């Protein structure tokens, strides 16, 4: 019998692709996004309230330490916080028990129901997600400013009396996944514990965890700012007020059965500022510190950058996936390249990595570029027909963005942009289009977007674009000399 190994492909190609295929793909994606937003909103509803209260509290406490701030009613504030926290926990409990079941029910709905839900969800999807992300970013930024919490090290400020930290991360097998206690800090003001889950058997990180002191006192820490999806999550647990942790404490995770984890804490060291934590370099006004700590045969490095009011650090691009800089490089004193690894589930921007070291070894870590995001937007109105000589310029994050050409491709419009010198030391690299799904062409060398393409409504002669989330590349390199 004659044979032909391409026959399967030939036959498969005879299967016609229905026109509704893309619509159905989008429907599935929107459904997932809508549920993710639901989870975020669920997390945020109680937790962001708590976070804001905590941040207010932390700000109040920070203010308390400032000269001339002694008259702040801190005692009353603490009392009020305790009540609000209790109320917030009570309010969140029903939601916490509802959410997983709600997700299951949705997943099992039939096609018609799902499509209907998507139609509604998709209208608000893009906006809602942006809002959630934006708010989370603000919370993170305020958190960083208020706390300066560095896992394994402590906190960047002058007063450290009575502060204990978990100096080394602890990895545990939980079911088929891995839980890492990435850091813990406890002092008279608050106790914070950060975790990272990989392949977690749980749909979400536990809503709360329990700490038991040596004297038997139990304290419940509620979850704050969980991020991630699937089985990979990072989450932070937090409680205000003093806990008599001492140097030994027991962590209990509410699994089935509960999992007890003994933790050994150590007195935190005192750091007056970021520079005291490790080698620091500044380029174009952006300062980065590499805080390193030896853990067994590895060095754990945390990159830190003082929070800025006008922008936030969006991405260190450790793996070189985001820009064209190639990512973080590590070499020993012989010039041999060393591989690093980083946890998968970490809150953005990923800033922590590990690499193997030997006693007496000296290493150079090079970070070629970082990305920052500005909270700026701009609007522009463009024709939906092809135009060769277009000069529509708007300013975004202080950079001129000139739309030089439009090209109509069926029901889509491609807009060409000039965003200035893409190879400049500080350059606008990309931005998002609010409420639009788009594709883009990226320059291979500089990473800058050259054009963006999106669908345009039938019959529209012009389209208004809202440019948002401008991402700016800041080129160094930042180099840090570290020793084991």
């Amino acid at each position: 019998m004659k044979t032909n190994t391409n026959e399967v492909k030939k036959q498969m190609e005879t299967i016609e692709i229905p026109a509704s295929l893309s619509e159905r793909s989008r429907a599935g994606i929107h459904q997932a996004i809508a549920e993710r937003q639901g989870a975020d909103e669920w997390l945020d509803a109680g937790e962001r309230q708590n976070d804001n209260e905590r941040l207010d509290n932390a700000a109040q406490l920070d203010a308390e330490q400032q000269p001339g701030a002694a008259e702040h009613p801190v005692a009353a504030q603490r009392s009020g916080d305790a009540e609000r926290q209790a109320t917030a926990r009570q309010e969140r409990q029903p939601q916490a028990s509802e959410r997983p079941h709600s997700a299951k029910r949705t997943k099992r709905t039939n096609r018609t129901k799902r499509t209907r839900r998507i139609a509604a969800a998709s209208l608000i999807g893009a906006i809602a997600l942006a809002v959630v992300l934006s708010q989370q970013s603000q919370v993170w930024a305020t958190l960083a400013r208020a706390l300066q919490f560095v896992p394994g090290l402590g906190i960047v400020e002058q007063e450290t009396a009575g502060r204990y930290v978990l100096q080394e991360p602890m990895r545990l097998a939980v079911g088929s996944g891995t839980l890492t206690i990435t850091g813990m800090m406890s002092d008279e003001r608050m106790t914070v514990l950060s975790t990272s889950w990989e392949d977690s058997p749980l749909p979400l990180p536990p809503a709360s965890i329990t700490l038991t002191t040596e004297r038997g006192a139990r304290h419940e820490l509620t979850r704050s700012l969980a991020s991630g999806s699937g089985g990979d999550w990072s989450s932070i647990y937090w409680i205000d007020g003093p806990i008599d942790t001492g140097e030994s404490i027991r962590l209990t995770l509410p699994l089935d059965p509960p999992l007890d984890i003994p933790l050994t804490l150590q007195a935190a060291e005192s750091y007056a500022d970021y520079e005291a934590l490790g080698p620091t370099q500044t380029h174009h006004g952006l300062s980065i510190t590499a805080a390193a700590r030896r853990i067994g045969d590895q060095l754990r490095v945390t990159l830190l950058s003082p929070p800025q009011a006008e922008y936030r650090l969006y991405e260190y691009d450790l793996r070189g996936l985001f820009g064209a800089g190639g990512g973080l490089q590590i070499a020993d004193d012989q010039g041999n390249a060393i591989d690093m690894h980083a946890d998968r589930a970490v809150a953005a921007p990923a800033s922590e990595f590990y690499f193997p070291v030997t006693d007496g070894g000296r290493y150079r870590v090079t970070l070629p570029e970082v990305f920052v995001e500005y909270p700026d937007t701009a609007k522009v109105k463009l024709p939906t027909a092809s135009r060769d000589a277009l000069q529509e310029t708007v300013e975004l994050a202080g950079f001129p963005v000139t739309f030089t050409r439009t090209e109509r491709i069926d029901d889509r419009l491609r807009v060409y942009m000039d965003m200035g010198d893409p190879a400049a030391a500080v350059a606008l690299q990309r931005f998002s289009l609010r409420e639009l799904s788009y594709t883009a062409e990226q320059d291979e060398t500089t990473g800058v977007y050259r054009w963006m393409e999106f669908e345009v409504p039938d019959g529209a002669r012009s389209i208004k674009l809202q440019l948002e989330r401008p991402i700016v590349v800041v080129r160094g390199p930042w180099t840090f000399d570290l020793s084991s």
Partner: protein
Amino acid sequence: MRIIRTQGVFIIEVLVHQAQQGDEDSFLDLFQRYEADLYRTAYVYMGRQEDALDVVQETAYRACKSIRSLREPRYLKTWLIRIAISCAIDMLRKRKREIAWQPEYTEMLALPETEDLPLKLTLRQLIDGLSSDEKHIVLLRFYYDLTIREAAELMELPLGTAKTLLYRALGKLRQQVREEDHV
């Protein structure tokens, strides 16, 4: 110059990274690169357009929900295929149109060890003549061009079992072609 819609590994990695950070557009871009292949694969399992569309929608849903669990962006395509096939099998099970294939690890079928396909293979033979696992291995090997080892890994089967499965599927197809030739 790099075009986002091309198949460059780098740009796939960038899009996967962005999708894992929650960028819906990047995920949509990624998924739409493969949706036609996924649809055709689903069609072979389901045999009907509307059912195959259901599978694609469910695949998009599941993949978007778990994109952060994808460790190696270069395996995105096989990861999606795996989800799509899993969705198809789940749907078939729900509709009781499928008799689960029982792995016969010790079975040694007297099949010729050749991966050649009959010349006159028809789509209907692919759809109707093979079990889910047989479709699975045939599509992975001949439509997605995976090696038999890669297909075995994706199906989480021992290599020998995957070979047995493939040769049995090919044997069935050859037999069908012979029978139709005689008609």
